[in-house]
């Protein structure tokens, strides 16, 4: 899958978790600029990513994966 396709998947996941159909996610989206991406959502997000892609994240990856760009890097590296 291409980075662009992963971005699309991520957008779907963000839309579901945050219950916002029209949310647009880009490489630049991060915990800094997406208000609803709080620490609680962050934990849910990683649980959903692990389930969706059948992968596992380390504690450190979870701590550092606070932007879409980093998440895409993870997905590309793991899949």
């Amino acid at each position, binding site marked *: 899958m291409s980075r662009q396709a992963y971005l699309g998947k991520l957008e779907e*996941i963000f839309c*579901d*978790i*945050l*219950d916002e159909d029209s949310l647009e996610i880009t490489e630049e989206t991060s915990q800094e600029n997406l208000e609803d991406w709080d*620490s*609680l959502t962050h*934990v*849910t997000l*990683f*649980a*959903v990513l692990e*389930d969706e892609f059948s992968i*596992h*994240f*380390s*504690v450190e990856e*979870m*701590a550092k994966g606070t932007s879409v760009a980093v998440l895409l890097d993870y997905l590309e590296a793991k899949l």
Partner: protein
Amino acid sequence: MEELEYPLDAMFLLRKKKALLRQLTAESEGFPVVKVAILGGSTTDELSKILELFLLNKGLKPSFYQSDYNCYWQDVMFENPALLDFAPDVIYVHTTNRNLLHLPSVGMYEKEVEDLFQQSCEHFQRFWDKAETLFHCPLIQNNFEPFSYRLLGHQDGVLPYGHSRFLDRMNQFMVDYAQEHSHFYLHDLNYTASSFGVERWHDSSAWFSAKYALAMEAIPHLAFSVANIMVSLHGKNKKAVVVDLDNTLWGGVVGEDGVENLKLGLETGTGEAFLAFQGYLKSLQEIGVILAIASKNEEENAISGLKHPDSLLSPEDFMSIKANWNPKDENIRLIAQELNLGADSFVFVDDNPAERELVRQNVMGIGVPPMEDYATYREVLHRSGYFEVTNLTQEDRARHEMYQQNKDRTAFCYSTGNYEEYLKSLDMVAEIAPFQPVFLERISQLCGKTNQFNVTTKRYTLEEIQSISTDEQYLHFYGKLWDRFGENGLVSVVIGRREGDRLSLDLWLMSCRVLKRNFEHAMLDQVVEACRQQGISTLIGTYLPTIKNKMVASFYEDMGFSLEEYLEAGGSTWKLLLCDYKRKNNVIKIEE
């Protein structure tokens, strides 16, 4: 909502919880509000969000207080003002084995381990005692789940300093406490985690990352399990199981195969499986669940199947038998009418997915568990969590018998004709008196679950009922009723609050089991008599409408009260001057 019934898709719930919350909230108008304090020994945010979904799904509207991270003990012991202000209706203490801080070290002497154990017991006991003093509300406490690893392997539960042994003893200590404190409800986390699978339950990443004491995927299962206790405490358990017959209570189709060829009994594995399910239904009946039948069959065939020599259930076990060719949703509504219960308090058990879907779509709120393999019917029904036991009273155990007597009464009524004559011929005897300690549990249970004949639908906890029973400001009455067919039990409750020479009726309820028996007349007679002795000259009654209590909209008018005023949203207040009140009851004898 099917997504919130067994079997749970935990990841779906985690992912879609906001959308589900939005949908459930839109339909939650008029739900009773329940203030839930979650006192956690680890992170509880996700838990509270999922718990909210399950409670809304069962008709309760929760608001939450969460203690700060791992402040469950401090919040109570140091009386956190925020928690005091919140004034919870129910407390859930989410502690886990992560909160067993002082565990024995290898090689410790028995005496040292014993000291640690006593300290740990004292830590919790002081906390529970204090919570009871402060809040007088039900407290749900997790016991401890198995550890994620065992240093001493199989000896961990055996050697004096084994951690598993320590944990088992703590769990026993909680059981002992539960047996002596009626407001204390154990949540068996040990079972919940084991049932899910200990290996999957624990996720140390979630602990190190966010201090969750269980895997995210396990949280919906925990929330479901805890919600079931809260649902039961608020009287929202299901009350009856409506079962299909062919391939549900026995293997085969009785109308085609004939009784002699049904698979039921110990001869074959299949027969044994159906027998086991019948045994489970029989046990449900023993804890107060009503059984009924909705089957596509000729009635004659249905009855002959139930008379199979190996059948554990017989026709008499069912309060209603609808064996005909009408759609099952119609039959279910008829059964509900006959039993004076809401169809939303039923569970429908049928092996046929098409029938299940029909009933699910056409009977709002009914439970429809996925009965797909007859070998696991028991487990599926159990895991669906419809009959969580919180207060198992004598009355629950005798309920089947009482409904049976009701059936006899109806038959008797048809044979007499004149209604007053019929009532007289029932030889009814009532006991109507102020609350007594032995009945408080039954009284609070009735307050929690009576929806139809309940003029204000005010809910009282056991603790509130206890305090009313000793408060001189209140006049309170319970009513028990017997008749020629047996005992109906404690079936009516009235609570009045003194305001000078007036008595304001805060609560008037009656079990639907004794509708149309003029028992309300007998109750009013006794209320009036007690008022006269206390120098009270006027009764004030209020009707507060709900979706379910239309049958009492004109209750006070029927009792001879005059209208004071109409209230917002269809309510009304009523007044009765006691100076010219004449006794109403002439069909029930009152026990002195």
